[in-house]
């Protein structure tokens, strides 16, 4: 290990790998397989959305009018920025910049928090108007199927929000490990994997935002 890497802990790969590179590549394939399954997990919500939008287009227009596009827009910007800080975090880990890594990860964490706070205010507004899934729906609407829109809205954004929360947990774990100096040019697998996960969360939102808020 060269002198410049003093501040990092050396990583030892698990016994069944020939070297750390093979370990990293395997983790990547595993992660992409996991992302593929995540996408299909969300597919159910998108298919349900497509079917019911096809059956009751007016109901969806009415539903979308109840959502505040500005909040959604703001949250989109927040998530995109957090995706950017995430890749920069990965890159810093890769280039042995410990401090930058911790900073970028912290910013990502804070942005995720901002996203959830905005989400909280949006949810509170919906609850106030009784615009909830059917068993709790007490709102007023022109379409008698308006509750289906909010059913899909809450399941979709709820599951996405859950993923954001899990991502925040993972980021916290990364920040702690990064502070201990565990990530450097030869070993940044966890940062890279959480990064991929975080971009996936971003992609899901890229679709949820226009589908629910805009059109």
């Amino acid at each position, binding site marked *: 290990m060269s002198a410049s890497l003093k501040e990092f802990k050396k990583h030892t790969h698990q016994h069944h790998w020939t070297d750390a590179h093979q370990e990293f590549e395997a983790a990547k394939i595993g992660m992409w397989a996991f992302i*593929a399954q995540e*996408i299909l997990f969300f597919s159910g919500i998108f298919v349900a959305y497509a079917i019911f939008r*096809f059956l009751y287009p007016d109901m969806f227009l009415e539903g979308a009018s109840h959502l*505040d*596009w500005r909040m959604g827009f703001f949250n989109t910007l927040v998530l995109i920025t957090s995706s950017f800080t995430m890749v920069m975090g990965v890159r810093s880990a890769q280039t042995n910049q410990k401090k930058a890594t911790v900073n970028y990860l912290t910013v990502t964490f804070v942005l995720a928090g901002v996203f959830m706070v905005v989400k909280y205010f949006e949810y509170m507004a919906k609850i106030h108007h009784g615009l909830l899934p059917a068993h709790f729906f007490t709102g*007023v*609407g022109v379409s008698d199927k308006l509750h289906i829109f909010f059913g899909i809205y809450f399941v979709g954004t709820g599951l996405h929000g859950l993923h954001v929360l899990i991502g925040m947990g993972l980021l916290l774990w990364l920040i702690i490990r990064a502070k201990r100096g565990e990530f450097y040019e030869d070993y940044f697998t966890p940062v890279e994997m959480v990064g991929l996960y975080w*971009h996936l969360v971003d992609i899901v939102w890229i679709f949820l935002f226009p589908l629910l808020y805009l*059109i």
Partner: protein
Amino acid sequence: MSDSQKHFVVPTKYYIGTFVALLFLTIVTVAISRVDLGVLNVPVALFIAFVKMTFVLLFFMGLKWDKPMSSILMVSSLFCIAIFLYFTFADIAFRGDVFPEEEGVHNIKSPVQVVSPAEYEMMFHQDTDKKH
């Protein structure tokens, strides 16, 4: 670890470029949604979302520099969604035996307090005022 196995460090210009493109496309999609394009509303919004996704996949997630297997997994998962949608629609959009909704048979207990569009305007008048 030998030098040939060093991980490729992506130049920052790709990341910044993607970031800017994503911000720009977000503004575009919001701006376009303010204009009513009729039947094109949904396709245009989806198209922009797909472009954004492609940017994230290629650069943020590094598919551009990655092994082909990652892209194969990604594309096949999208392909599966396409199959899912297509075949479900093959049933639902082509049903010959769906009759107009009928009182009684269509025993739907809607929780929605249904109002006429005019009443609805009245009720949400104040809200819309606040919004704009």
